[in-house]
């Protein structure tokens, strides 16, 4: 068990005024068996009234609507939590056993799975760790080759990617192997942005694994959201009107 402080902020700036801006944020960490949220403050500017709900995957959703003209939207969370990776979450959903939009494998990824599955046997944990090892040998961590829209098969074919891509490919491999797996978006030590990792279902609880760093998840991780893949977990999504052509996004995260 470890007590951690977390901070996360996003500054969205538009190059012209926007209005009728609807947004949904998934940035308030859920209070779970593995993380007790002691405090969490959310600040959004410009001022807007927001509503909190919990979505189908157990994520805290903050929804808002900015009607008038504005050129920026900033939001940040600040808080403290007790992380305890020795405890286990058990919020299983059968949909995690099936491939989803971002994890659907193509022939190349399926062939990769067929080639390595002989070497990845044993318990669910053994297999998951085996796939993670194989993946870290195959995929190079490098920014700039993929973006948030990149699917597992695309990243695999490029051979390079970031934490999101490692997660999608590992989830795809696990699901091909009949292991339920989910995508996690969250904060971790050493990262300046949001991090992503994977949880697999052992048969009676979730176990975390960080494929980008090829290591198990410990108390240095705070979950913000979980889902079938990135689509269910985006920190912020919005729809707005206006003549803007660009938006600039600055993200900062700190975990201490």
């Amino acid at each position: 068990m470890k007590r951690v402080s977390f901070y996360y902020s996003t500054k969205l700036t538009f190059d012209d005024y926007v209005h009728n801006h609807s947004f949904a944020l998934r940035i308030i960490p859920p209070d779970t068996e593995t993380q007790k949220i002691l405090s969490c403050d959310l600040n959004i500017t410009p001022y807007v009234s927001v509503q909190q709900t919990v979505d189908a995957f157990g994520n805290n959703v903050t929804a808002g609507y900015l009607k008038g003209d504005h050129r920026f939207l900033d939001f940040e969370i600040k808080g403290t939590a007790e992380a305890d990776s020795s405890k286990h979450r058990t919020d299983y959903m059968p949909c995690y056993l099936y491939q989803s939009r971002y994890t659907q494998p193509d022939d190349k990824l399926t062939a990769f799975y067929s080639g390595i599955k002989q070497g990845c046997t044993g318990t669910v944990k053994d297999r998951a760790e085996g796939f993670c090892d194989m993946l870290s040998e195959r995929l190079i961590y490098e920014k700039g080759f993929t973006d948030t829209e990149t699917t597992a098969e695309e990243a695999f074919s490029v051979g390079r990617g970031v934490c999101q891509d490692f997660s999608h490919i590992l989830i795809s491999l696990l699901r091909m192997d009949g292991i339920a797996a989910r995508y996690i978006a969250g904060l971790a030590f050493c990262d300046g942005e949001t991090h992503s990792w994977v949880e697999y279902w052992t048969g009676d609880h979730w176990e975390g694994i960080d494929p980008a760093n090829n290591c198990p998840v410990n108390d240095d991780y705070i979950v913000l959201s979980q889902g079938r893949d990135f689509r269910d977990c985006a920190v912020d999504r919005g729809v707005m009107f206006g003549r803007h052509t660009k938006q600039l996004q600055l993200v900062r995260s700190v975990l201490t």
Partner: protein
Amino acid sequence: MELTNKEYYMHAVGNADEINELLRRYGVKFGIYKNGVFNEQFFPFDPIPRVITAEDFNGIEKGLVQRVNALNEFLFDIYHGKKIVRDGIIPEDFIYISKGYLAECEGVTPKNKVYSHISGIDLVQAKDGEWYILEDNLRIPSGASYPLIARELTRIAAPQAFSENSIVDNRGYAELLKETMEYSNCGGIRAILTPGRYNAAYFEHSYLAEHTGSVLVQSDELFVEDNILYHRTYSGGKTRIGVLYRRISDEYLDPLTFCHESLIGIPNLMEAYRSGNVGIVNAPGNGVADDKGIYYFVPKMIKYYLGEEPILKNAPTYLPFYEEDMKYVMDNLDRLVIKDVAEAGGYGVVFGSDLTKEKLEQFRRTITAEPRRFIAQEVIDFLDLPILDNGETVMRKADLRAFVLTGEKTKVWASGLTRFSRNPDSFVVNSSQGGGFKDTWVLSR
């Protein structure tokens, strides 16, 4: 047919051209896309009604109420405890591979637990008089307005037919729909959401809005603020919507939840819905229950949830997913009808008897490779109905779409849409495949 008044025929048949002209003038059309081109077509009306006796209707009614109640129980179960899967009645795969299953709807409970408010159940009557269910449409079944308006016009063209026969009045549909919408109203006005005039059923959307006293809206007129759905008024104000009868499909409902690339839809509608601030008619996620693969399991659902024997039969159906069924399908492919579970509107329906030897072989391989994608059914020898073709009466295949509405109680509208195939060799009656429609008379005695 002896039940129909001869005089009606004389008048209605004599006035068929006039009625079709009136329908044309009223704008009773449907639109279809073919090769990327939008065409609005006239939906041809045939003046000879289908007549259903009171006794026959009574059986259909009981069977449909039972079926729709079971389907509603199923939808609640699938998005909550999933008992039917845990108890081994339906294999898990059939739920989660179905395109209609939406994980985003897990745990959401619509007001009063009604998921399928308006169900369009397609039936056929076999030559021996027995009715069979062909498919369930629980997402956005269309077509109720056609028999309504046709009846309105035949009343004008041949009023005696209705004074001399004991035909159940079908003009109560709008009232029934209004009652159904009100039962799911979470506080506010009623609205019907249309994708716009380029939609196949735009005529119907405006017709139903007018007759139920609902506002006809498009998604850019709506917004969600503080998890409440509002209609933006012309004066710049806002009116709260309590129930939304949407005629757009699930994936375009809310771009922040479903199709993120979509330019249509209402951002955060799902948050308002989940919070119980607006009713959505029909509920998102219903596609899991009207999937052609799930159809096979509906009689089992009726036994499981209601503890009753199904009153109406399914057409004999085989799932290549099961080994035994696969063998049967392979051996009898040349006389079965094969349906692609992912397709709708009469597309993806293949009759084995129409296929050449090579095509049959090719199809066997496709089914073997993707067993979950297809269902196979016996071809039912359905009862032909008379239609008028250039002044001659000819016999054609026809089905019946019954409309079943669930509010406080589940009720069957005593009418329905009878569609027929104009092609003498075809069993496919969908409007998008060039069929026509006729009025459906339910007799009161």
